Each structure stands twice: as structure tokens, then as C-alpha cells.
């Protein structure tokens, strides 16, 4: 009885008692959700266009951020570092297409999936070899991103909002809109959608798969760079960040592997869900449930809706 009270009554009472904390929790959930969604977006882009479940997306986030900071540490001006980092992501896309995707074309999905593990390990080693393993600070101010925070006085308390978080949300929105326009309006975007529907059909109307692959990996690289800057500004840039990339996987399950709106909604659900659960219910089991909460949500969700939030019901044919 007491337990039921603790589970079903007290957290809600507490939400009412301290609305400032509730708002803060929601804001934190929102910001994490946006960042999860950004990582998931990179996954979705690549999965849509090439059917590759790109495990390396998380590492690409760290690698991109590390490249940016690394160039800056070598004395390159911030803006030029950014340009160089974008260039490196393009090189990465070309290399991955040449060295990994092209020789493995027509292999089963699991082989391509494993190949992205290979990319992951390679990038970890390569990144640390070039830029060193110690954590680095993101060059937030040099990139003219806002710093500092605002304390909003609400209901007898305050809500702290980091300016960088606002910027992250804004940039995420802009980026998603840009990608949307890119997909629907440009020639290459149309080709991309065609490839997503059917590789063979796209090939037969003269779309170059290689070009498409470079494009999506590059796009995913840009998404990774932006995500890396945002995460890096919240903590340090180091390979310890890669673990956060795993959080994008339950997001994908909720949203479906091929849906961009799904990635965003899934990201927000996971972001809100885990912050609220950790803050209000976590103490009941000693806290730390954030490390698995998202996966359990995804697991339960899968049992009832295997195709994800936005996926279409699969009709199996034989």
C-alpha cells in the first residue's frame, strides 16, 4: 500500500508542489530529446538511402566534434576549422562509400551492419591517434554560439535555461527543415527518395547509387558535426560521449528506422520519458534508471507495435 502510494501518488504531488522543478525537468527532457533526435536523424538518413544500419553514427558525432576542436587546437581559426571539419566529413563519406559500401554491395544487411562496427573501431583509433585521447573543450564562443544562462523566476523557484540549449533547439529545427526541403525539392533529394523505395528500380532509371550514398553519408556527417558541437558544448568532447549515441537506438525503435518525423518524436518521447522517470521515480530504486529506461520503453513498445510509431504495418507475402 505504502509502495503504491510512493509510486502513484507522491511523484505527482511533488510535481504540483514544485512546479519550477517540473518545468526544469521538462526543459532538460526537451533538450536531451532534441539531441537524441539529431543522432537518430543521422541513422535514419543512411538507413533510408542505403539500408545500412549505421552503428558508426555515434562515433561520427564524436569524430566530427573532435576534428573541429582538434583543428582549432592546432591553431586554425574557428571558422576555418569548421570548414575543414566539414571537409573531413565529406572525405569520410567518400572513403566509406569507396572502401566499405561499394565492395559490400548486395551483401546481407548484417554484413553491412558489422562493417559499420569496423568503421566505428577505425574512427575511434584514428581520432585518438591524430588528436589525442584527452577530453577537449568545445570552442563554443569562437563559433559565435551563445554562452551563459538565464534564470527564469517561476512559482517561487527558478528555471535555468542554458543559451546553448536554446541555440541547439533552434539549429535542430532549422536543420530538419533544411533536410525536408532538400529531400522534397531538389533533384538529388528526389533521387534519394527513389533509392529509398527500391534500389533496383532507382538504378534502372539511371540514378547513381554511389553518388547517392556519398550524399547521404555526407549529410549524416553534417548532422553528426552539428550534434557533436551541441553535445560538446554541454560537456567535453571525448570518446566517452559515444555511449550517449546508444540512446539513439531506442529512439529509432520508437520512431521507425525510416521516418524523419519519427526520429524527432521518438527522441522527444525518450528525452522527456527518461528525465521524468529518473527524477520522480528513480529514487524508489536508488536512481540511475536512466541507463536502461529508454531501452525498456522501446522493448515494451516493440511488443505492441513492431513497426514503430510511424512505420506502416508490414504485410508479409510469400
Amino acid at each position, binding site marked *: 500500500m505504502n509502495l503504491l502510494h510512493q509510486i502513484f501518488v507522491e511523484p505527482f504531488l511533488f510535481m504540483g508542489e514544485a512546479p519550477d522543478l517540473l518545468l526544469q525537468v521538462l526543459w532538460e527532457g526537451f533538450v536531451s530529446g532534441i539531441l537524441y533526435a539529431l543522432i537518430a536523424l543521422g541513422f535514419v538518413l543512411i538507413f533510408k538511402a542505403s539500408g545500412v*544500419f549505421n552503428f558508426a553514427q555515434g562515433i561520427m558525432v564524436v569524430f566530427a566534434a573532435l576534428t573541429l576542436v582538434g583543428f582549432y587546437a592546432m591553431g586554425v581559426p574557428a571558422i576555418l576549422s569548421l570548414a575543414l571539419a566539414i571537409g573531413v566529413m565529406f572525405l569520410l563519406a567518400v572513403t566509406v562509400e569507396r*572502401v*566499405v559500401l561499394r*565492395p*559490400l554491395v548486395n*551483401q*546481407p*544487411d*548484417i*554484413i553491412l*551492419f*558489422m*562493417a559499420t*562496427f*569496423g*568503421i*566505428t*573501431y*577505425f*574512427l*575511434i*583509433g*584514428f581520432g*585518438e*591517434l591524430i588528436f589525442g*585521447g584527452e577530453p577537449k573543450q568545445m570552442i563554443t564562443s569562437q563559433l559565435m554560439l551563445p554562452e551563459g544562462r538565464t534564470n527564469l523566476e517561476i512559482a517561487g523557484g527558478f528555471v535555468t535555461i542554458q543559451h546553448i540549449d536554446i541555440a541547439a533547439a533552434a539549429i535542430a529545427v532549422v536543420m530538419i527543415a533544411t533536410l525536408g526541403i532538400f529531400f522534397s525539392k531538389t533533384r538529388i533529394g528526389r533521387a534519394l527518395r527513389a533509392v529509398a523505395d527500391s534500389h533496383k528500380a532507382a538504378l534502372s532509371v539511371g540514378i547513381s547509387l554511389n553518388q547517392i550514398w556519398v550524399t547521404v553519408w555526407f549529410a549524416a556527417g553534417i548532422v553528426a558535426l552539428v550534434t557533436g558541437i551541441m553535445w560538446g558544448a554541454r560537456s567535453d568532447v571525448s570518446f566517452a560521449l559515444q555511449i550517449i549515441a*546508444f540512446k539513439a*537506438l*531506442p529512439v*529509432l*525503435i520508437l520512431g521507425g*528506422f525510416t521516418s524523419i518525423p519519427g526520429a524527432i518524436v521518438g527522441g522527444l518521447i525518450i528525452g522527456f520519458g527518461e528525465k521524468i522517470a529518473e527524477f520522480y521515480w528513480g529514487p524508489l*530504486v*536508488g536512481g*540511475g*534508471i536512466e*541507463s*536502461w529506461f529508454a*531501452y*525498456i520503453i*522501446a*522493448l515494451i513498445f*516493440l*511488443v505492441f507495435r*513492431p513497426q514503430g510509431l510511424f512505420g506502416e504495418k508490414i504485410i*508479409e507475402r*510469400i
Partner: protein
Amino acid sequence: MIYREAGQFKSNYAADMAVFPLRQDRIGIFVIILLAYSMAYFGSTFMLQAVLIPFLIFALAAIGLNMLVGYTGLLSLGTGAFMGVGAYACYKLMTIFPGVNVIVWIFVSGFFAAGIGVIFGLPSLRIKGFYLAVATLAAQFFLQWTFNRVPWLYNYNVSGAIEAPRRTLFDVHIVGAAATPQARYIVVLTIVILLTWIASNIVHGRIGRQWMAIRDMDIAAELMGIRPFKAKLMAFAVSSYYCGVAGAMMVFLWYGGAEYNVFNIEQSFLILFMVIIGGLGSLIGSFFGAALIFMLPIAMGAFLPAIFAPLGIRVGAETIEHLRFMILGAMIIFFLIVEPHGLARLWQIVKQKLRVWPFPY
């Protein structure tokens, strides 16, 4: 000509269905087992403790995962956690019932892993492929959290780690700090041979055929009366059993103690690499994969300084580590490109070449 089956006739079906129908294979396996046991006397302590024991344990875990991924086609990323279940179960059993021989508990602990494996395998009835892989991550993170957060599991030790208490078999120390690598090696080798033999029997029999049928064409399998429900859960159970036993052996016959983070996601990935590089759906491949993935870093630690030192380049420990990551990554890609079917396929090709040697065809 070295390796030929001509002249070996089978007069009944049982002989034709034997796991090693060829005489050369039977002799070969006998020699290998003999050599393996003799390593206990010839191998150095380092060879046994840091190379052979872990190799065998990883091979067993890889066999377990291979039954799930390679034979049944269910991708799992939770191997590390299932190994952990075996290890913690074994620890609890050993400390609650100190009178029972530890070997018994190593085998029994696998059943706990099997039970947990079945629970986390339930979603496999509705979901497949990458979705399932992500679902097994739930097992990985949740179980790891449990190992860390439930102090009962580690007997409220201040250290939070499980420590191998001293245990003997026939009055020889096999578990705990007093056990020699030789004794532990022989125990590990025997368990691995036994379980490999059983695994081979399972995959060659009805259950193995059902798994492969589910893997190759699940709908057709179901339309032929194979219940996917039973077959998939059986695969999860058997696979987790093997992983659990491997986990228990890892802690009690190799490390001598472990923290919760030994069973982390890296461990799961490593074993998955072994399975893929070794060859999906091949038991012998699991051994090859374990050997390559586990020994590669050890080899490179010895290799790289030797290569770079004459060039006047001082290679620090961390550079080796970075290169190790890079080379491991590059090797995975390399192997997938040249031989997506893994080392096991290469082994077959070699056998084929030997069969017709010295002729090219």
C-alpha cells in the same frame, strides 16, 4: 590427395550422419584434442593464462552466440549481460552452498542465464533483425545495472565485486588465487570440449534443423509445422546457457573476480565480432573467430614496437592502442569484403584444396 574420402564407404545411415564422417577428420580432431591437453604441460604460464584459457572461454561464448545469430538468425547484442548472469548465479550458488563442487555450479549457473535469456528473447516472437538487436540492448543495460545495484548479488561486498573463493576438484585447486593456470586450463578445456560436442549434436539434429529453417525462411518453416515460438525461445535458452557457462568460467577460471562492468556492451560486441569473422553458422568458425579477435591485440602489442623500433620511431603504449583499434576496425571491414562467410569458409576452401592436392582441380 592428402585429404580424400575415396574408399571410405558408409554401410548405414548412422555412419553417414556422424558429425565427422571422414576418417581424416576424426584423426585430426583426436590429434588436436591431444595437443590441446598437452599444452597444459608445454605451455608457459603466460600462454595458458593470457592466451589459451581466455581463447577457449571466448570460443565457448562465441559458440553460444553463434547458435542464436548464426543458426537461428536472431541478432543479439546482449551476450555480455547473459555471461554476467551466469557469473553472478555461479557466485551466489557457490557461496550459498559451499559444499557442492564448483564444477556442478558452473554447469547449473548456465540454466539461470538460459532463463533470463528466454525472458529477453520473448520479443523475438514479434520482431526481427535490427529491431530485435536493439531490444537485446535492453537486456544488456538493464542486467548490467542490476549487477551493480543489487548488493545481494555480490554478497554486500565492500568492493562491490565478486571474488572467486578457493575451491578444489579432486583436492586440486581450480578456483581462487591458489589455482594454477595448468589446473584451470585443463578444467576449461574439458568443459569447452564437452559443450562443443553437445552443441555439435544439437545443431546437427532436429533442433538445429529447425533453427536453420527459421533462419533461412521463417514463414516456410512455420508452414511446415515448426513452431517459431518454441524454436526461437529454445535458441535463446541454449545460447544463453552457453554464454552463462562461459561467463561463470570467465570469472572463476580466468579472472578470479569481476566487477559488473566486465559484462559491458564492449564484451557483447567483441563476441559478436568473433561470430561474424569466424563464420555465421559454423562451430569451428567460432573457434577461429575467437582466436583471431582475441589474439590479434596481443599479437599487435608485441608486433608493432618491433616494427617501428628499427625505424627510429618510438611507439608508446597508447599509440599501439590507437593502432589496435584502427587495425581491428580495418580488419573487420577487410574480412567482410574478402570473405563475408568468415574464416570457416576459408577453412572449407583449404580442405577442398587439400582434397585434390597436388592437382588444381
